[in-house]
């Protein structure tokens, strides 16, 4: 069972990102679970969501305290998200304009803000970063690009889906493993 936690700010689309990843798991022939933590919901407040992917039935229903993958929606949250807990050999994926590295953890970086802006994807809270991040996380988790694309089209049939495909596909190719920090 693979465990992943998303740390973000309210309004960044962490819940939808968690749902997309769980749906992609099912589309990919596996079991998926998205378990957002609903607190006192406010825009800008720290939020988190758990995602699990497994070839067999998922029985866990807790938040992911020591995830194998940590997705950070904003580079400002990186240290706080790591401090909250991660598997010793866990991988970090950060939305950041430049390369970033977390000590002792393989770190992937993608500029989701820029990709969303270039694709014209905006919500009331700014660029719709969860779409490029979905593409980036699929790449890191080895979820095939066609599965990623089908998941988006299932959720947003029509033109909205096509615009999302462009941004997610770009992130799928641009997400990069950063040089380790010693």
């Amino acid at each position, binding site marked *: 069972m693979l465990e992943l936690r998303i740390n973000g700010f309210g309004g960044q689309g962490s819940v939808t990102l968690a749902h997309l990843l769980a749906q992609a798991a099912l589309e990919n022939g596996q079991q998926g679970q998205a378990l957002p933590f609903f607190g006192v919901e406010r825009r800008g407040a720290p939020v988190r969501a758990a995602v699990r992917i497994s070839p067999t039935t998922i029985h866990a*229903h*807790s938040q992911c305290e020591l995830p194998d993958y940590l997705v950070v929606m904003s580079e400002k949250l990186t240290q706080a998200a790591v401090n909250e807990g991660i598997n010793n050999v866990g991988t970090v994926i950060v939305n950041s304009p430049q390369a970033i590295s977390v000590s002792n953890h393989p770190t992937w970086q993608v500029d989701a803000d820029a990709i969303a802006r270039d694709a014209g994807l905006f919500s009331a809270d700014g660029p719709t970063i969860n779409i490029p991040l979905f593409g980036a996380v699929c790449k890191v988790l080895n979820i095939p690009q066609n599965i990623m694309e089908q998941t988006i089209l299932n959720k947003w049939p029509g033109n909205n889906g096509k615009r999302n495909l462009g941004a997610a596909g770009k992130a799928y190719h641009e997400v990069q493993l950063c040089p380790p920090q010693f």
Partner: protein
Amino acid sequence: MKAAQVIMNTGTHAAALAAKCARVDVIPGYPITPQTSIMEAIAAMVESGEMNARFIPVEGEHSVLAAAVAASAAGARVFTATSANGLLYMHEVLHMASGGRLPVVMCNVNRGIFAPWTLWADHQDSFSQRDTGWIQYHCSSNQEVFNTILQAFRVAEQINIPVMVNFDGFAISHCLMPLTLPPQEDIDRFLPPHEPEWRLDPQNPSSFSNVTMASEYAPFRQMLSDDIRASIPLVKQAAQEYKEITGMWDGDTIDTYRLEDAEVVAFAVNSMAAELRLSVDILRDQGIKAGLLRPRLYLPFPAEDIINALPQNAQVMVLDRNYNFGHPGGILASELKSVLFGRRHDITVKNRVIGIGGIDLTRRFMAEQILAMMDE
């Protein structure tokens, strides 16, 4: 023959879909977190015509259940849902439904009780309604919620007793998981249309629930008590036939995991019991013969099945997500001790209260709790 369909769905939407698949006639509703999305989903399906049913929005939970009782007395198949203080506000009418022998099925999405306010799960709400004469299931997965609502209608209508289907707020209610939907014709075969022996009929006026003298009242109450206990074989039969038709099984009155040779038995309900399977695996990896016994039925408490399932000389670690005020521990431990008394002298019962108000219960934390309890 049509194949089952697998979709991604939250626990609340699984409950709403079960109500649709049960072909319910009437759904009175009032919102309360974390149940609200059940009522929202049903209202949307009624509005779109996907459900051929009457949705009745009312001004509070007492009226929800009053409308449910009236619709059920008129012969309708009735479903509703609530949580925490909404359930407590229904308390008086819960008795009306069971005493009136009305087979309403209601989901209670478990949430801690005011005061102070909390939104997250514990089991004080459902357990505190023990003495209202409702049959109570507690479910540990989205799929079990769906399956159990269908089984609940069957049992309720066979024995004319209302059934409460409980599951945890957020950990299940807002958790997106795969859900297997059996073909509708299979569900129809499992759950035939509701045909009550008696109903209120404006064309044939009759009165219902008059004042009774003790000589009439006492036998009514005795019959209710006897019939609640007689529901156990019906619960087993419903689970068995549901399995034969759909291939799905969540246990009947109880569910067990690695129990046969267990020396240490975790005992809990709802989503924490699902997570406890992983705690059992952790303990087994450390060489401890651990197992799990999860009562699916809280009321009637499945005494005989528990007595028969517990291995010799087991230490039972009851993990209660509730308080039994006035006692040192929780309610499940108290129920378990009362059924073991005089029957299983070989069993040791230990108890802790954990996870109150939705404190996250991880597999590691619960394995540590069980380890610590072994030394007590």
